[in-house]
């Protein structure tokens, strides 16, 4: 495609977007009519979405996409995306929804709309199941492992009381090894890393004690699709109430949905 063609298609897309915002029918109506919903899912971010044994994407987000499809009673067409192109896919109407471990921030909120949170994503302090730790002060006199330079390491350095010892390791693998070998019983890390440890070593699974930085995942869609937004929120609320969401979380993140979601 040459520059002129790109420029032409871009201006056409812009014109179409401007036009359709006013005149077009709601995306939810289109989906119900076509009996298919297109959902962008991650392809390179386990356990949210990665290539399965048959190269089809599998993960938390794919299960979530299928759940929404089932509730709507339509077929799901998953579209693998990466974190750079997931919002453009939505804006250019290649998909109706983005379920791609998408976090909320101000810039994104300017261009797309977000549902309620459907998946936990946070950095926190994790320990053995029966360790009594609920807040940073409880770390007094204890040893915490973390990966040097990571957000959680910098935050826990500020939060932990002076009597706590922080062991800083070179990378996530060393932090994981220090926890698995019993060199430390408490680690500050992301819930995805904790889930990976729990998967490999169920006997020594790290359990979330408190959250350092919370940035849960939301379903993204175009602005102005209020009916679709309401419907997605309704499905998430129902899945939360009947335990479907918890099942997905236990399956992929080895932990129940936290109360904050």
């Amino acid at each position, binding site marked *: 495609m040459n520059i002129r063609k790109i420029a032409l298609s871009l201006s056409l897309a812009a014109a179409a977007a401007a036009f359709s915002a006013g005149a077009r029918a709601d995306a939810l109506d289109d989906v119900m009519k076509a009996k298919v919903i297109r959902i962008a899912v991650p392809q390179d971010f386990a356990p949210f979405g990665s290539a399965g044994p048959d190269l089809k994407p599998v993960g938390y987000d794919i299960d979530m996409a299928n759940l929404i499809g089932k509730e709507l009673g339509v077929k799901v067409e998953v579209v693998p995306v990466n974190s750079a192109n997931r919002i453009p896919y939505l804006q250019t109407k290649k998909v109706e929804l983005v379920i791609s471990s998408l976090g909320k921030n101000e810039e994104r909120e300017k261009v797309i709309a977000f549902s309620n949170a459907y998946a936990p994503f946070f950095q926190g302090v994790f320990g053995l199941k029966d360790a009594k730790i609920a807040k940073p002060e409880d770390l007094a006199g204890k040893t915490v492992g973390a990966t040097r*330079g990571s957000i959680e390491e910098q935050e826990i350095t500020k939060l932990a009381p002076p009597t706590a010892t922080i062991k800083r390791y070179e990378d996530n693998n060393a932090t994981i090894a220090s926890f698995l070998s*019993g060199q430390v019983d408490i680690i500050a890390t992301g819930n995805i890393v904790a889930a990976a440890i729990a998967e490999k070593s169920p006997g020594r699974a790290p359990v979330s004690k408190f959250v350092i930085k919370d940035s849960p995942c939301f379903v993204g869609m175009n602005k102005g699709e209020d009916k679709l937004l309401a419907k997605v929120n309704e499905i998430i609320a129902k899945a939360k109430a009947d335990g479907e969401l918890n099942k997905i979380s236990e399956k992929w993140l080895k932990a129940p949905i936290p109360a904050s979601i």
Partner: protein
Amino acid sequence: MKFALNFSDLLPYWNVILAGLIFTIVLTAVSTVVGVALGTACAWARTFGPTWAGAIVRGYVEVIRNTPFIVQLFFIFFGLPALGLKLDETTAAFLTMVINLGAYSAEIIRAGIKAVPAGHIEAGDSLAMTRFEIFRHIVLKQAFQKVYPALSSQIIIVMLGSSVVSQISAEDLTYAANFVQSRNFRAFEVYVVAALLYLLLAIVARFILRGVGRLAFPKG
């Protein structure tokens, strides 16, 4: 390309770097003394000791001299807990350093022992010296004299190699440099300072080792 050097960003962390420097000095000093003692004992076992002791030492030396230091360190820190032996990172760092220097110095000292002429030992025998006296006054003294430069180099190598212990969160000079770098992102300045400190340490260590050598083995 414009790049402004800014060493003043390191100032708030001077105590971190100083603590790391002290740890590296203590780590090197202790492992030098204990490691060379271990090496001497091993060299004795392989030359004058019983056959079984020689065989054990031979195995130990082969294993340590033919595996990377970092693997030995990870095995002791991450591996041994699986066998029920949990050492904290400081103990693991000291232990690995001693074991490593012990194996290398054993071979260096053994070379020195081999270079002692048999006639000198026989002379000790004919003077009715005990086996220990012969080893201490005739063999070891000459052996150390001969291999002292090689042994000094090995100690410097081990000191520089000690930077690896930062990988198991032992808080040495390299750990301090990595830590400061993760806070102020002044990689160039931090590692220039760390490199200069290591250089300074190596020069001072050589100076001290030469002094010790002059005192212990005076010429003539």
